[in-house]
């Protein structure tokens, strides 16, 4: 049974402060005291929250970025389909993807926090959220959608002495509560535009699925599906509308370049593109959701084979492979492509590439298979990055880099040079959002 979702869009063209939070005709009025009160029940381990606004066109840098959320709220759903926005996070994990959802368009809510470099995670690479940087001008502004959105930055300071689990949980829930509160201001109002998402099977066109493999390696490196991390997930078939309604939520902050924020999970460029061709060139059959970074060959084969099985079971002729994470995840993606192709399901994929400083060092991919003959390049993450100075920094005024070498704390507005783009938010282009690619010369 296919799903029917109406997305109603309420653009945010300006944000102003006022006595009470309100939305009207493209203007979002916020009262920060009101937002603090909304977040308070979720913030037992948060000592301070404060807000900043970064508008489109500003010459700015945003640092310490954790997740970025698309504020949205479920306005109505058919009986027996109780799933609300981001089900399982602040509400019960009922199935989402049907009914009417309101979205604040052109607007992003960004969690920024300098999470403690404490002993608990001191030398554990995985548990350490590396500083994530968004540059809103120049070449690197192409990495994320957030140079063009109006961004409400929610800065967090965490209470000392608590666990990473508590910080992670409280930051996510506080931010989600604020996002929901703001989106709910639109309830009862007419949208500027709306879109219907309905993938009722389009007969006579080839069935295509998107495989979406997300990182899950522990706190600060997790992805939630209906409110739970996907550690031991068996590849799962989702309707595309579940993705649009927030069934999956990012809790992954460890490698800024290799991450897909929640905002992009629910505005997935591949999901939206496949939808735009549904009934014209293809028949968008679903999203096969799985975990990347499978821990061993045994797990990798198990996962790749099950994905190919599901794709075959629903009658797919084609498949798009998309993964989050580094070289380990690349192996999972390639194995999946191989298993699908061997079963007659045609696959295309996109990936970042390696190649060192100029493309000539080492191999371009950690792994590939002969069956992967349709590969789109999202650019190389290994090229040196030079960031021009900016007028203003949000999220923090000092960067925190190179913990393993004792730490380096440059001014957040100054010129910056990185050996690779590892600190650049979404720099690996793993959602397919960016237009950056690599050309051979």
């Amino acid at each position: 049974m296919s799903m029917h979702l109406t997305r109603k869009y309420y653009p945010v063209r300006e944000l102003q402060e006022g006595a009470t939070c309100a939305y009207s005709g493209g203007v979002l009025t916020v009262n920060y005291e009101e937002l603090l009160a909304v977040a308070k029940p979720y913030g037992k381990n948060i000592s301070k929250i404060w807000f900043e606004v970064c508008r489109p066109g500003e010459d700015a840098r945003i640092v310490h970025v954790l997740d970025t959320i698309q504020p949205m709220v479920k306005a109505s759903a058919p009986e027996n389909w109780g799933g609300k926005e981001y089900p399982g996070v602040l509400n019960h994990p009922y199935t989402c993807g049907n009914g009417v959802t309101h979205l604040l368009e052109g607007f992003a809510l960004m969690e920024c926090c300098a999470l403690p470099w404490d002993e608990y995670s001191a030398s554990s690479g995985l548990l350490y959220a590396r500083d994530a940087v968004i540059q809103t001008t120049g070449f690197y502004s192409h990495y994320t959608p957030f140079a063009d959105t109006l961004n409400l930055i929610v800065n967090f300071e965490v209470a000392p002495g608590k666990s990473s689990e508590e910080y992670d949980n409280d930051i996510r829930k506080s931010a989600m509560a604020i996002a929901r509160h703001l989106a709910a201001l639109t309830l009862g109002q007419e949208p500027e535009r709306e879109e219907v998402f309905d993938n009722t099977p389009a007969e006579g066109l080839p069935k295509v699925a998107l495989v979406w493999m997300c990182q899950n390696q522990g706190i600060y490196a997790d992805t939630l599906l209906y409110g739970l991390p996907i550690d031991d997930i068996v590849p799962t078939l989702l309707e595309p509308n579940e993705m649009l309604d927030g069934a999956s939520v990012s809790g992954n902050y460890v490698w800024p370049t290799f991450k897909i924020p929640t905002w992009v999970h629910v505005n997935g460029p591949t999901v939206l593109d496949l939808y735009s061709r549904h009934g014209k060139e293809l028949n968008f059959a679903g999203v096969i959701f799985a975990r990347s970074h499978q821990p061993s060959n045994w797990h990798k084969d198990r996962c790749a084979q099950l994905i190919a099985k599901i794709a075959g079971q629903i009658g797919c002729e084609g498949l798009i492979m998309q993964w989050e994470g580094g070289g380990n995840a690349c192996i999972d993606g390639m194995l999946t492509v191989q298993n699908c192709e061997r079963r007659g399901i045609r696959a295309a994929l996109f990936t970042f590439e390696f190649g060192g400083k100029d493309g000539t060092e080492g191999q371009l991919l950690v792994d590939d298979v002969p069956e992967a003959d349709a590969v789109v390049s999202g650019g190389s993450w290994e090229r040196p990055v030079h960031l021009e100075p900016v007028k203003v920094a949000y999220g923090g005024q000092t960067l925190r880099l190179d913990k393993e070498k004792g730490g380096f704390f440059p001014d957040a507005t100054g010129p910056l040079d990185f050996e690779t783009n590892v600190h650049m938010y979404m720099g690996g282009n793993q959602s397919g959002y960016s237009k950056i690619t690599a050309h051979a010369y």
Partner: protein
Amino acid sequence: MAKLRAVCYINQFFAGLGGEEKAHEGLSVYEGAKGPSMGMAPMWKGEMEVVLTLSCGDNFFNLEEQYESVKPEILRLVKDAAPDVVIAGPAFNAGRYGVACGKFCDLITSQLGIPSVTSMFPTNPGVEMYLRKTYITPSAETAAGMRTTLPRLAALALKLAKKETIGPADVDGYIPSGVRINEVDAKSAATRVVDMLVAKLQGRPYVTEVPLRKDERVAPAPAIADPSKIRFGLITTGGLVPKGNPDKIKQYAADSYGTYPIDPSTWDSAHYESVHGGYDTTAVNKDPQRLIAYTAALELVKQGVIGSVTPYFMSTSGIGTNVGMGRKLGAEMAEKLKGDGVGAVFLTST
């Protein structure tokens, strides 16, 4: 407007002197176009002309001593001719000619700063040698394909002479040098990948944006016949280092490794830690033997199962390191261990 100027380089055969028997011929100088360059002139529609053609025998130009003797004269002639571009070949699949063309182009571009271009069959050894020194357009395998080879060469030569920006290899028709540059496309990666899949499903042509690499397989080493006679080494890619990471091994994309002695009195969590950036290192930080099972190896020595074990281990951080660097580090480790009489290693990965 004055015409742009080109200088061409050809070998004895295309200069009409003869084949193999004339391959030792020295430098010949011709005013204007000679040989294949005559075919390019009409393609430039009056915008460029060949002002000078130089020729050497292939054997002559490839012999270092003779090449050195003629180099000053070539540089003087080309400098005096003041070309906007130099063009060598096409060399097709002739190996010595290809190398000579690459050498000529490299000389002129590096010494005089004048852009250069040549043309060869992709498997010509000159391609590999000069790919990053000059532009090389792909040619047919033999001179029978002259007609299909010249247009690309002529077009790129004109573009270089006009000092226009040279685009990517597939746009401007030259053999890619391996250099890849990040650029902004007109479409997102998401749209391009769906375009590619739809083309694949409809049986229309598509071109992968990341070239496929050749299938590389590492053959497993043969089994150890008698471990009791073998000295074992200890390697981990799990990022184990003495506390403080004295060699500053990178947490990600490591390009070095360390060799660390094991002193049983300090072989504990107070003295070792992992700097690996891709797994939960909590267990390792509580006990270095999670990565390097030194005590267990000593026990095997005592039982006579293995001959001996090195009193040190080698370590790097195996995450995000590209394959080329991995191969280099592995070879260096193996070399050192072999020098120490090691015949096998316990290699722990994470």
